[in-house]
């Protein structure tokens, strides 16, 4: 959680922006004229598509955009209710089934376009937790197809109070107009979506930067550090640039495609929110599209993060960590940090874990689970070690694996483990009798 001081600054900032938004009509930001291509007569509840090809294409767009991940919880497919913790309070995803009262059944196709691509919903401005900032890039064709697909969804009555858990002033939807003015590029895709299929998927439906780009204090992606890694919901989304030390520098497009479609490239295995993205969305990409994403990512300029010289493993702490590793970790991750192909991540040669250790600490304290995919069915779990290890032990083991087998990374701070233990509500280490 952000400090009180930081939140105070944020409140002031948004209040100013809200005022600016109200005073100066930011035509460009709020312009929805691109939605004019959509029908404005039939509501979703009234509309039933008969075009099976469009429905199938629309389902693919839905998968690529991973709508189901955030809009499905206990009440049924697309019926909303998924809680998203933000630094500004808790948002709850909306019901997007064609139910008239509680879903989006009263929207026309044009209303739908306005919401998905411009962040303007039936109850006012949307919060950018909904990645309309990326969906703005979706083509008219993809949007039409998505609309056809949504008409086939079963209506579910499930009332949602989307922003009831947000603190003032963040519970004011109008404030998002100001936010949009500052941070939202309302324009469509600035290239040929077919020729640049990879970039179109990454920046559009895939909304990769939503997690993989760092965000500023007002929750906006920092364009200057595009896909250079970010922290989201207690996990670290790694650097996707060609950086050879902490990014995808050593990966081929084929390996990236494998990772997207199966959850593993043979070295690393998706966990946390990425496991959800793979399971619900990316595994459904065609091999062609997954390769297009891989090709695009391998074309990115490397971030300028420098390599870190490996720390010595000869210290007493690291010798202790070596024993702890052998007893607790090696059964699955291997004595040489080799992991189990397609099931348990390797540490050797796994650059994604050499940067920010947030996700690794998270996994140590709360456990993690790999995605279930059609290809890799196991979805193996990583157990929590919160009950067994102190903050110092967790930090030591992580430092050990981040500096062994050819790796080099900064030492993990026990204070960061303590903070995460508190933030996640992870249990304390059990008491051990002494004599």
């Amino acid at each position, binding site marked *: 959680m952000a400090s009180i001081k930081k939140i105070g600054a944020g409140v002031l900032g948004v209040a100013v922006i809200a005022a600016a938004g109200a005073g100066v009509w930011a035509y460009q930001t709020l312009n929805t004229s691109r939605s004019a291509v959509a029908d404005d007569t039939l509501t979703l509840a009234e509309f039933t598509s008969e075009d099976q090809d469009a429905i199938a294409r629309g389902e693919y767009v839905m998968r690529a955009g991973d709508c189901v991940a955030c809009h499905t919880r206990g009440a049924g497919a697309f019926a909303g209710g998924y809680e998203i913790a933000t630094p500004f309070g808790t948002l709850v995803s909306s019901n997007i089934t064609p139910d008239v009262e509680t879903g989006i059944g009263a929207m026309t196709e044009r209303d739908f376009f306005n919401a998905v691509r411009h962040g303007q919903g039936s109850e006012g401005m949307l919060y950018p937790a909904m990645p309309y900032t990326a969906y703005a890039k979706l083509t008219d064709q993809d949007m039409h197809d998505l609309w056809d697909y949504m008409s086939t969804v079963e209506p579910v009555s499930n009332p949602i109070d989307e922003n009831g858990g947000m603190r003032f002033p963040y519970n004011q939807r109008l404030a998002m107009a100001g936010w949009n003015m500052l941070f939202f590029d309302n324009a469509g895709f600035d290239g040929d979506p077919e020729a640049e299929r990879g970039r179109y998927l990454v920046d559009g439906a895939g909304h990769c930067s939503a997690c993989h780009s760092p965000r500023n204090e007002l929750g906006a992606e920092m364009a200057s550090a595009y896909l250079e890694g970010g922290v989201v919901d207690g996990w670290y989304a790694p650097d996707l640039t060609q950086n050879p030390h902490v990014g995808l520098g050593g990966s081929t497009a084929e390996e990236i495609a494998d990772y997207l479609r199966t959850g593993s490239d043979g070295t690393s295995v998706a966990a946390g929110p990425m496991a959800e993205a793979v399971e619900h969305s990316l595994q459904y990409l065609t091999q062609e599209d997954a390769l297009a994403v891989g090709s695009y990512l391998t074309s990115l300029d490397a971030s300028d993060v420098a390599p870190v010289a490996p720390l010595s493993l000869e210290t007493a702490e690291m010798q202790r960590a070596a024993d702890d590793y052998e007893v607790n970790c090696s059964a699955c991750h291997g004595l040489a940090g080799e992991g189990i192909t397609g099931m348990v991540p390797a540490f050797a040669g796994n650059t994604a874990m050499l940067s920010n250790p947030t996700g690794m600490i998270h996994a140590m304290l709360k456990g993690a689970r790999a995605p279930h995919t059609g290809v890799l069915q*196991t979805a*193996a779990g990583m157990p929590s070690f919160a009950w067994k290890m102190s903050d110092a032990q967790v930090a030591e083991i992580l430092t050990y694996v981040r500096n062994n087998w050819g790796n080099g990374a900064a030492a993990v701070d026990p204070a960061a483990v303590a903070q995460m233990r508190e933030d996640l509500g992870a249990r304390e280490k059990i008491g051990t009798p002494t004599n």
Partner: protein
Amino acid sequence: MANERPKADVVIVGLGWAGSVMAEELTRAGLNVVAIERGAWRDTSTDFPPAVDPDELRWHTRRELLQPMSVETTTFRNKTGQTAAPVRNWNAFQFGWNVGGAGTHWAGMSWRFLPWDFEVATQTAERYGQERLDSLMAEGLQLQDWGVTYEEMAPYYDRFERIAGTSGKAGNLNGERIKGGNVFEGPRERDYPTPELKDTNWMRMYRETTEGMGYNPFTIPAGNISQSYVNPLGVTMGPCTYCGFCDFHGCGNFSKSSPQACILPALMRRPNFTVLTETEVLHAVKHEDGKTVKGVQFVTRDGEEGFQPADVVCITAYQMDNVRLMLLSGIGEQYDPTTMRGTIGRNYNYQTCSSVTGFFSGAKMNPFIGGGALGVQIDDYNGDNFDHADLDFIGGAGIMGYSTNGRPIANMNGIRPGNKRWGSEWKEAYARDYQEVANIFCQGTSMPTRDAYLSLDPTYKDRHGQPLLRLTFDWNRNDKSMIDYATEKAIEIMKEAGGEDLMVDNQAEAAWNPYKQHSSHTIGGLVMGSDPSTSALNPYLQSWDCHNMFSVGASAFPNNGGYNPTLTVGALAVRAARAIHETYINNPGPLVEA
């Protein structure tokens, strides 16, 4: 009916190995399957990850993965005329008590039975003459074939091995004998999915000793797999670390063949599969005509009763419970040892075992390197692999030198004879003998008799008021002679290896008793066969008396091989499930005419 669930194509009663294998086959064929499991959900990383699974006190001593006797137990007696008493403490029987069943806590020995084991009656008559068979029958043995041959079983064994990732080395590839594998095994079409495990110090000694004696040692086929492996369902298993916490334990690193490690990850995601956990099936419910069943009556953990309708009912619980559920459902006729009428409860049998312990001064056996199925065996005296013409028994035993575990609590009585079992003398002896002890185990066949059977107890009831199962069993003369013979061979091997201060435990020397057994392999009572007057199930594991009921488990074995039962249970499950979805569903009725 109150609390009636939506109808399923198939209801599976008990989600252990047999239930999981069948559910996987049936859902893949598109059928809608509901499994009902008495125990709770158990998951590798949540319930027994590597930092938890070597907790010997919790899992092995206190048996936390097993069904407690307060839930259900059996009563037992050695012979008709005695009053059976309930078994009230931990004993030979290891009822599963979770999703995964006993398949979660088994050791992992992954044997195919010998071709002989399926046709004991026929092959005894063929090799030794009808008179020999007649005289064994006259003595009280109740020998009968399974109605299925090894040759017919081979493809199903193969399928189960592929799912389980079994580690081993072939000894008979399409008839070609291969030294280093088990040259006595039935022909297999291809080698094991993963290579055999490595030798410990004791296994190497045992291998060299038996080879020097002219025997044919080989590494036991194991469900503690030797390397990572992806099975045909797309599920990945990890390599065994030889930690030795296998039987009674879950496996934390996905390397012990089990429903958790091999089937459930794929099965649980199928939309046409549902499991009701912590829900106990009380009995099946018959249609008015009594010829078929319409579903099963169950009770939830919270005591609410309900009904699960289904077109097919598969009873795939623990061996004892398979028999009990048939009796509680009123399917078929209870076996009566005096009239020999009835088939339910018939041919109960066990596993005839002995062990020989020796000590090797100054040795470093390092028993902490272990695996539930880690060992070297000779099959030269198993089944009918040796000539019985001049012997007074049939059958035999696998004789293994094993390195299954070095669990510190379990082994603390494994010290030289004559040492005190307490105090500093014990501590000193244990510190020494932990490294110097080695064991040979004879795992023998068991032949059914007229007098051994299962029935409902007339007195004792479970928590729901249903009668407990009563076991009437004692060792028979044939099996006692067999294990005496095998034990002598094991003693010779131990002496030849250099073992001293031998301790011999021949289990058949005293009357059978559930507290004293080294084997948990309880067999029969609901056996398969081609004759409805002597078997409860036809060769497809379908009830002769009720064609939409199937039952798979070791309960279906008419006699026991000198092996662990799991692989045969798994193979029978594949066979039964395929018979259901390939034939029965489209044309319901008896798959074999009586």
